């Protein structure tokens, strides 16, 4: 399956070639006049920089501190967490009330002949620990080792009736009595037990870099990820479902290897990337807690992510002229493969499982990307750039007919799988003209064609144009104004897919629909010579899906940012920031294609505030101290306008406030005492979970999770020994 590039791709190519020829001719013409002056470094030269030589034989560096030997710091201490909180401990590893050890360090060794060793360790007493070790001989080789632990706590108040949570087999308690609704499940309350939904990711890395003489470089990196725990996934039998604690047992091995050859003005690199994913569980089976709707439909089986692999080779290169012309390009070819043995079409022994057209998917997707960028300065005050790109997903997975068994209950229709492919190609160019040292005018344009298979639209074209003014009316003030416009049009008609239950013919999927997008951005930056920096940004972006009578129809995004930092006094730094963002979007719909029309309007608002200060020479007890306060608030408000009635859902809201105080006090020349205090409060409201007990929804057995909320404080004392 191949798709040809058409008009817009040719235009983009022509534009880029024109840009290249202009840049090249100007660059060549410029070469003679742009030789490196012996007394003047070649500023703006893409090829580098050269200071005149000087005799340094008498420069003894006798006042230079020693650079060899061991140095660094080691820290140890203890901390205390005031309360249990899964949410507070997420990614931090501080989910349990009580004391915890603190251990870490930053140690390095440097030898006389360039040998070195760097060791860093952080949070060794927690699951969220990290270790880094790097050593070698500077300029010759480098070996890297790393370990990271990332705990992810999702829910600490979930409850389930299933045994075997986190394994591939979930069973109901002995004597469970089915019911048609959750309210009728007589053993529900007595069977519910706590289940923690959490995962832990551990990553181990090993890398080696070699420099072969002055021109060759070699690099190889291995990473092994292991992620295990549980996640929540719904399992259904037609219109009844149960939220299940399914296992996560993932291992991913990745390899990055490259060989590079570098010269003064050009370099090339050949690289390989491999990713190999292994899932310890092929599926999860679960008992149906509801009354089976068909014989044998008392157990279901979900497929879990299949093992897969990805191999990719890349070739990259860059070339720089003696002037300002620079060309960089990359070609990448990859292959995704997946051939895990299929599960049977059903686990229901009362149904003769339909024959499968094949034993495994034999899935294969070839990916091809190509990018080239040319940039340069054809005139002293004019820089220009052109870029071409190509991205193809060529899905070679076989297409076959599969007889469906719906919900492990009944034989259903025959479906053909859809191995989606796409081809994206385009180009863009931009110019920057420096009117003066205080003002630059910029502009650019781009065009992209996107071809797809097996979807409602075969091809779309997106064109964009933008203009920007950057200026400095005074030495301290910078102003930037940008306006961009983008339009996406279908190049083919919108053809709804042939489905048993049809889509609304007026639906336009937002990623395929015609769209106009406008962006306006204004920013001011003020920097005083006293060190005060103030930044203000205002941005508005609107999306209009002009022809989408059903589906996402519009979006309006407005944001404001204010950033202030400075030194109000000697050895004191202070900062503050504020941002507010407001997003309104409308989704149109219609019940059952011809019944009541409706519009769901979602209004998102976000606000983030932070202030802080650091005293490098604190006047009392501590030598260094500081405070940091942040507050983040987010609210989603959804109005459903239907049948002349507007119903407003309860707000989806989160509020996080944190205060951190820290101080360091020297105990002697080598040892510091560090004290840290953090208090954090989080509140969340979500109608999706608030008041939703396991038996609230008649046809869905949930885990009864509530929305998280906590106020937790942490105190930590650390002794740091420096050497």
């Amino acid at each position: 399956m191949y798709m040809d590039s058409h008009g817009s791709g040719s235009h983009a190519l022509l534009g880029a070639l024109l840009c290249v020829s202009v840049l090249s001719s100007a660059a060549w013409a410029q070469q003679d006049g742009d030789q490196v002056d012996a007394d003047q470094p070649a500023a703006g030269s893409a090829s580098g920089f050269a200071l005149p030589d000087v005799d340094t034989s008498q420069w003894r560096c006798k006042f230079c501190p020693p650079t060899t030997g061991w140095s660094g710091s080691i820290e140890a201490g203890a901390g205390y967490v005031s309360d249990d909180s899964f949410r507070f401990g997420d990614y931090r590893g501080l989910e349990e009330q009580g004391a915890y050890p603190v251990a870490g360090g930053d140690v390095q060794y440097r030898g006389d002949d360039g040998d070195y060793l760097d060791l860093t360790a952080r949070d060794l007493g927690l699951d969220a620990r990290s270790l880094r070790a790097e050593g070698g001989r500077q300029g010759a080789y480098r070996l890297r080792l790393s370990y990271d632990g990332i705990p992810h706590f999702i829910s600490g108040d979930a409850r389930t009736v299933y045994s075997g949570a986190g394994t591939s087999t979930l069973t109901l308690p002995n004597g469970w009595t089915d019911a048609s609704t959750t309210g009728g499940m007589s053993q529900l309350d007595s069977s519910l037990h706590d289940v923690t939904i959490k995962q832990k990711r551990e990553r181990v890395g090993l890398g080696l870099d070699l420099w072969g003489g002055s021109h060759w470089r070699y690099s190889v990196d291995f990473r092994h990820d292991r992620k295990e725990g549980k996640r929540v996934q719904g399992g259904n039998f037609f219109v009844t479902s149960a939220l299940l604690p399914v296992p996560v047992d993932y291992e991913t091995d990745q390899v990055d290897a490259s060989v590079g050859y570098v010269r003064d003005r050009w370099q090339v690199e050949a690289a390989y990337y491999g990713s190999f994913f292994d899932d310890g569980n092929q599926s999860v089976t679960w008992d149906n807690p509801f009354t089976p709707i068909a014989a044998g439909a008392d157990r279901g089986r979900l497929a879990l992510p299949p093992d897969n692999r990805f191999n990719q080779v890349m070739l990259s290169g860059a070339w720089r002229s003696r002037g300002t012309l620079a060309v960089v390009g990359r070609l990448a070819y990859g292959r995704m493969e997946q051939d895990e043995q299929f599960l049977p079409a059903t686990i229901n022994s009362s149904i003769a499982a339909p024959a499968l057209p094949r034993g495994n998917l034999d899935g294969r997707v070839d990916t091809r990307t190509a990018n080239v960028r040319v940039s340069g300065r054809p005139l002293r005050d004019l820089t220009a750039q052109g870029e071409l790109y190509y991205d193809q997903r060529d899905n070679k997975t076989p297409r076959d007919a599969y007889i469906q068994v719906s919900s492990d209950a009944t034989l259903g229709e025959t479906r053909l799988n859809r191995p989606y492919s796409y081809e994206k190609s385009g180009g863009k160019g931009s110019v920057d003209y420096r009117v003066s040292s205080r003002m630059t005018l910029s502009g650019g344009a781009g065009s992209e064609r996107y071809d797809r298979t097996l979807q409602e639209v075969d091809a779309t074209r997106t064109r964009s144009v933008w203009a920007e003014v950057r200026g400095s009316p005074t030495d301290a003030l910078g102003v930037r104004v940008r306006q961009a416009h983008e339009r996406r049009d279908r190049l083919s008609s919108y053809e709804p897919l042939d489905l048993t239950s049809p889509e609304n013919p007026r639906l336009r999927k937002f990623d395929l629909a015609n769209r106009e997008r406008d962006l306006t951005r204004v920013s001011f930056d003020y920097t005083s010579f006293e060190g005060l920096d103030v930044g203000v940004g205002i941005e508005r972006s609107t999306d209009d899906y002009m022809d989408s009578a059903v589906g996402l129809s519009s979006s309006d995004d407005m944001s404001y940012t204010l950033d202030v930092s400075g030194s109000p006094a000697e050895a004191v730094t202070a900062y503050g920031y504020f941002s507010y963002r407001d997003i309104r979007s409308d989704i149109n719909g219609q019940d059952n294609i011809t019944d009541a029309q409706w519009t769901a309007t979602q209004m998102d608002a976000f606000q983030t505030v932070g202030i802080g200060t650091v005293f490098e020479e604190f006047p009392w007890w501590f030598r260094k101290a500081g405070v940091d306060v942040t507050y983040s608030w987010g609210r989603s408000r959804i109005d459903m306008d239907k049948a002349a009635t507007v119903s407003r859902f309860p707000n989806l809201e989160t509020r996080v406030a944190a205060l951190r105080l820290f101080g360091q006090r020297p105990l002697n020349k080598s040892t510091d005492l560090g004290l840290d205090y953090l208090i954090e409060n989080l509140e969340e409201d979500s109608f999706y979970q608030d008041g939703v007990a396991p038996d609230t929804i008649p046809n869905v057995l949930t885990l009864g999770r509530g929305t998280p909320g906590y106020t937790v404080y942490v105190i930590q004392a650390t002794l740091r020994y420096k050497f």
Partner: protein
Amino acid sequence: MRASGSGIRAAMTIAIIALSILAPASAAEGDDDGGKLPPYTEAGADTCLKCHDETSRFPVLSIFKTPHAVMADDRTPFAGKQCEACHGPGGDHAKRVRFGKKRPPPPAFGPHSPWGVEKENAVCLSCHRQDKARLAWHGGVHQREGVACVDCHRIHARRDPVRVTSEQPGVCYDCHQKQRAEMHRAYAHPVREGRMACSDCHQPHGSLTEAMLDRPTINETCYTCHAEKRGPFLWEHAPVTEDCTLCHQPHGSNNPALLTRRPPFLCQQCHSRAGHPSIGRTTDALPSGMPSGFLLGGSCTNCHSQVHGSNHPSGANLSR
């Protein structure tokens, strides 16, 4: 509603206003390249360290704990012109200054140094341009925007903050305030907790991929940690194969799983088949009314839980 006409008018209006503000200040001025080079110091670093010692207002001695000061590596500054390899010849800066006169700054990397960003970057690139990370620097967004190497890097620091996972985001937030706000939202990647850095996904030194991502495509970047989503699957969900950001906001969201919005509204942007997918859910479906699994809990994903694709032969509707 056609926005292109109003968009163009807005652009013209803004341009006219901007030009009228900026034009009076746009008198041509000379380039700030500092003119002819001053002479070198007599003794190199020994000259500089007479003033820039451990009591200096600008701490510099930590550089001797960094790779830049490894004299056994003849590529480093301190194996050659020492401080002046980067700061430029410092003869004028180091010599005696007449009473009442200001001390001239070194040519580069000083508070009032005359060299501009491009020339200072050329200093760094004279050694570091051949690193593979900087292969796409020229023409990249940061280079075109005039970002200086020292805007992000602290050369004199024993541990450059931008190269420390927990400290790097703070450096990026100096310019990327919008992303800072997003990272503080309720659901985000573990950047705020210090477990991930911006460079885990982005290549700040320049990239040929959109948004300066490290891998050739958005999805390939995501798959480096979320390989279970790669597939290919027997039953694919088309937007998943194209672009994860069609449904997810990787910098942070108010919604679990970093979704841009929650189901059913997320799904009803693209699905309106006759039957339950097309029904506009109202507050009647809340626990206070007739609680509905089409809205509450996981909403659509209570049943259609294989949103990223399914390899089950009977998983065509992403529920097996």
